[in-house]
Structure formats: C-alpha cells, structure tokens
C-alpha cells in the first residue's frame, strides 16, 4: 500500500472515506487503480505545455492586432465588443465548454462542414482543444496589451511620423517596444491560464491520454484514483508555473518604459 495522507483511509476493496471540509463522502474505487500510482504524468505535461505554448504563440499576433485596434479606436459598438471579449472571464468554464462542445459538434454548422470537407474533428481532439483554448484566452491576451497600447501618448506616434517613420516602422520601433510589458503579461497570463484550465478542457477535449488529457485533468484523475502523491507533484508543478507567470507579469509591469518619466 502506497503512502497515504492521514485523512484518507482505504478500507477493504476500495471503500474509502474522503474527508472534505464539511463532511464524509464515501467514494468507491477499485484497489487496482490505487496500485497504478505514478508521479508526474509526463504525457499530460507534454499536452499541457504544447497547448500553452501554441495558444500563447498563435494568440499573440491577433491579440496584439485586436488590442491595438481597441486601444486606438472609438466607435459606437466598442463597449459591446469589449464586453463580449470579456465574457470568457466571467462565464463558468463548464458553460463555455458546453457551448463550445455544441458549436464544435457534428450537429453544428461548423462541425458538419468540417466532417464533410476534412478529417479535422474539433470534439475530443487536440485541435478542438487548441481552438477552444484560443477562444477562451482572448481576454487574457488582449486586456494587458490593450492597456499598454492605450497608455502610449499619441504625441509619440505623431513624433515618429514627423520624424519620417512610416506606420509600420512606427509600430515596430516605437509602439511595440513601449507595449512589450503588456505583451509579456498577455503571454504569461495566457500560458498560465491554459495550463490551469479545467472545465472547458474536460467538456471539449475529454481526457484522452496524449491527446486531450492535460495536467489539470490528470490531477483530477489522480485524485479520483486516490493517488494523492502524484496529484501533489503535478499540482506543485502547476503552482510553480503560475508563480513564474505572475512574477513575470509584475516584473514586466515594473519595467514599463512609459513609467520612467
């Protein structure tokens, strides 16, 4: 019998008492699953990491474009657009996951079209997971970048134009360097959020090992299997990622060139 925490006592043939704050919850599990203890689920770590990196990388360019557009323009429907963009932050992840599942499923127009014209499946696949991840992370990427773009005084852009810099060079030489703390924040928040996302991943991706089982799903699985040690290891890895991400965000914010005045 593996090392267990004091609050969890296995009884003969899988009947255990799980002590969780308010009371005792009996959970039935087979003893066999208990014996399949692993520490780090490297397959899940790989899926999580790949998902986080791809989400951050793919979302950065459109994120910058949308953020800059929202920061520099003002139009009638803008508050509504901004509210829609924020929606994934406020909706329960399972709700978002549920609707994405419906949207990606073969009963939907998108799903039906994909089924008819390609081999791409969006439900219970890594592609679908990535697409869902891109959609729900939009506010995490856009918000911090939008704030830094909005903080750039317009006179700096005008100064660049008068100095002879075209729009693109003004963007690359002046705006991007000044907005980079926002970019760092956006990437770090997106990556950290992707690593930690649970509800949407479970709804859209399920828990297919090597495909859609991410670290947070693996933690859930391990806890379900009473493998608390493995859950701890993976949970700590995620905590570490989050701490690094938050530290990056704060470090970037402190080194914001625009605050040096």
């Amino acid at each position, binding site marked *: 019998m593996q090392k267990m925490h004091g609050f969890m006592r296995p009884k003969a043939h899988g009947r255990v008492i799980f002590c969780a704050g308010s009371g005792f919850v009996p959970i039935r599990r087979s003893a066999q699953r208990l014996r399949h203890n692993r520490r780090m689920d490297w397959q899940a770590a790989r899926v999580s990491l790949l998902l986080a990196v791809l989400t951050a990388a793919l979302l950065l360019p459109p994120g910058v474009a949308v953020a800059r557009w929202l920061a520099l323009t003002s139009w009638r429907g803008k508050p509504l657009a901004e509210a829609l963009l924020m929606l994934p932050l406020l909706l329960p992840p399972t709700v978002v996951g549920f609707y994405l599942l419906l949207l990606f499923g073969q009963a939907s127009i998108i799903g039906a079209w994909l089924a008819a014209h390609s081999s791409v499946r969006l439900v219970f696949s890594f592609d679908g997971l990535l697409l869902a991840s891109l959609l729900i992370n939009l506010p995490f990427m856009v918000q911090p970048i939008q704030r830094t773009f909005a903080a750039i*005084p317009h*006179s*700096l852009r*005008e*100064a*660049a*134009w*008068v*100095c*002879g*810099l*075209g729009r693109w060079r003004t963007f690359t*030489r*002046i705006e991007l*360097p*000044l907005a980079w703390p926002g970019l760092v924040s956006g990437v770090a928040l997106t990556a950290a959020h992707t690593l930690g996302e649970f509800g949407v991943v479970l709804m859209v991706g399920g828990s297919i090992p090597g495909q859609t089982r991410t670290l947070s799903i693996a933690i859930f699985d391990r806890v379900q299997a009473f493998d608390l040690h493995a859950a701890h290891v993976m949970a700590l890895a995620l905590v570490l990622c989050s701490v690094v991400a938050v530290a990056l965000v704060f470090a970037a914010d402190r080194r914001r*060139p*625009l605050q*040096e*005045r």
Partner: protein
Amino acid sequence: MATLQVQVRNATPMELDASFECAAGEVVALVGPSGSGKTSLLRAIAGLLKSRTLRGRVAIGDDVWFDSERGVELAPQQRRAGLVFQHYALFPHLTAAENVAIARRGAGASPIAEVFRRLGLAGLEHRRPAHLSGGQQQRVALARALAGEPKVLLLDEPFSAVDAPSRQTLYHELAALRQTLSTPMVLVTHDLAEARRLADRVVIVDRGHSLQSGSPAHVFASPRNARVAELVGIQNHFEGTFHKQEPGWGRLDWGRDGLSLRVIDKNRLPDGCAVTWVIAGEGVDLAREAGGETNALRCEIVEQLALGETSLCTLRPVALPGERVTLNPATSHLRLLAAQVGGSLWLRIAPEAIHIMPVKALEPGQAT
C-alpha cells in the same frame, strides 16, 4: 531656402481661418491665449491635423504640402517639417542619441556626436529621456527636429516646460541657432514677452483666426482692433468718437462731456466714427505740470503699488471720473514726483501714442 506660406480654413473640430507667411531664416510667433488654435495651425503645417473640412494651402516655396483645391495632401512623413512638441514627445525607450538618430534622413547629416557637442549635450548620448533635465530634453527634441534636415522648423510652446533659468539659456541658444539656420521657424507661444524677444514677426491668433501680423513693436503699438489690444495685454483701451480736423490731424472725443484729445489722422476712418482707442507703448508721461503739452489730463491717483523697479499706478481723469488709466511707471520716477494716493498729477499723452481702431473688428483673416 524658401518661404513658408500658410493659408488654412477649417470648420470642425477646431475652427480655423488663418494665413501667414514665414520667410527663410525668419522667426514668426503665433501668439494667442490657450485654446486659440495656435497649436492646430502648427499641426496643420506638419500634416498632423486630421480633418475632412480642412481647406487651403500649405507650401514651402514650390514644394506644396497641402492644397485642397488640387487635392494635394502629403503625409507627415513626406513633409520634412521639424517639430518640437510642447512636452517634447521624446521616445522614452530610446537613448538621447537614438532619439536623434531615428529622425535622420540621408547620409549628409552631421554625426550625432557633433550635433550633441554643438547643443551642449556631449556625454548625455546614452541617457534615456527620463534621466535628462527639462532643458536637456528640450535640446534633444530640438536636435531630433533638426536631424531630418527640415525645410521648416516648428516649435510648440518649447519653453513652457522648463524653469526660468534654463529658459534664459535656451533663449540664447535659439538666438544662436538662428545664425546658423536658414529655414523658416514658426514658434507657438502664449507668452507675449517671449514672442517679442524671439520673433521677427508675430501673428495674433484668436479662436482660430489670425487677427493681425507684423513686427512685435508694430502690433503692440498699433493693435488692429480692440480684441488684439486685449490679447497683447494693453490695459488702457477706451471708447470714443473720432472727428476729422485739419489734414493729418483729428480730434478724439473721450466721454460724453467732452474731453478732447488731439490725434493723428491716418485717413483710415470717416468723420464721426465710433472708435476704440488705446494708449500704446511709450509716449506717455506723468508730470507735476501740464507743461503746455497737447494732450495733458489732470488726474487723481487712485492706487499706487510698488512692484520693485516699476509701480502699478491707477489714475482717474478729473474730467471723466468714470474712467481709469493704468500705468507702470518707474518707482523712482513716482518718488521724484512725490506722488501719493489722493494726490493729483498730469498725464501727458503724445498724439502718436494714441492708437485708434474702429469699434467693429475688421473681418478676420485679413491680417496684414
């Protein structure tokens, strides 16, 4: 080098109707209160004023930057205007040298080190703007504006963000710069003293309209209308009626009960015309005796405040108790006259010091 010609009209968001010229090597100051449209005019020259209602023409010699009739509108990048922004707008993430280097066009520009040495910035090349003083930032902004070898140099309230001692140094530097620079220079300021000090010509701007232009001395001595007089800070402006007399001379009736002043008739106003008039510049004197002068008014001293070398002295003409004349005589002069509040003095106004304008302002945009 060519003359800058500006003639712009705009409806929204800022109403503009202004025209002026600035010759090569000349400094023209656009002077007016805050929100009068001076900066908008500068932005229109630089191509930064975005407005669908903008009409007119901005050209430097044969080089047309904007011509609404011919559909010409060059982008700011194509205009070759050096602009020093009010708060400099230096790029905060670049060093002083990089700020200047980014604006350089062509290979003919002098090395950065040389430019920095000339502007007294040697050794500061690698500092970021946040680590430069206001005066140093201003000089870097000037260096950046000049780095693109501009055809016109535009300065937007360049001295407003520096302290008084730095300002004095910068005035000197601007004066020195003029010796070496042959581009037209347009300076925006709300400070009349600054305009008088730095500019060859001033253009008085109010609510987007150029009201009058000319040498500072001329504009201050002969404001075109009451608004200009007010804007250039002439305290003494009054109402009256102008009557023609023998050729070259006129009579100004001040007040209903007939205080008459002898004035010069420039043949611009009809007989019996209601006028606004100002006592402009010098040509005004305080004395104990009337002294046989043409326009000598006996006045009572209502207020006398010593302000260091000069004093603020408010007088009430005995014949017109409702009026007040404010002067800033030398404190020592008042002491010599033993002037005291409640006492009386003679105010002697030379006919040349009285400047007469029709009450109704001329149509704006007709600055001469």
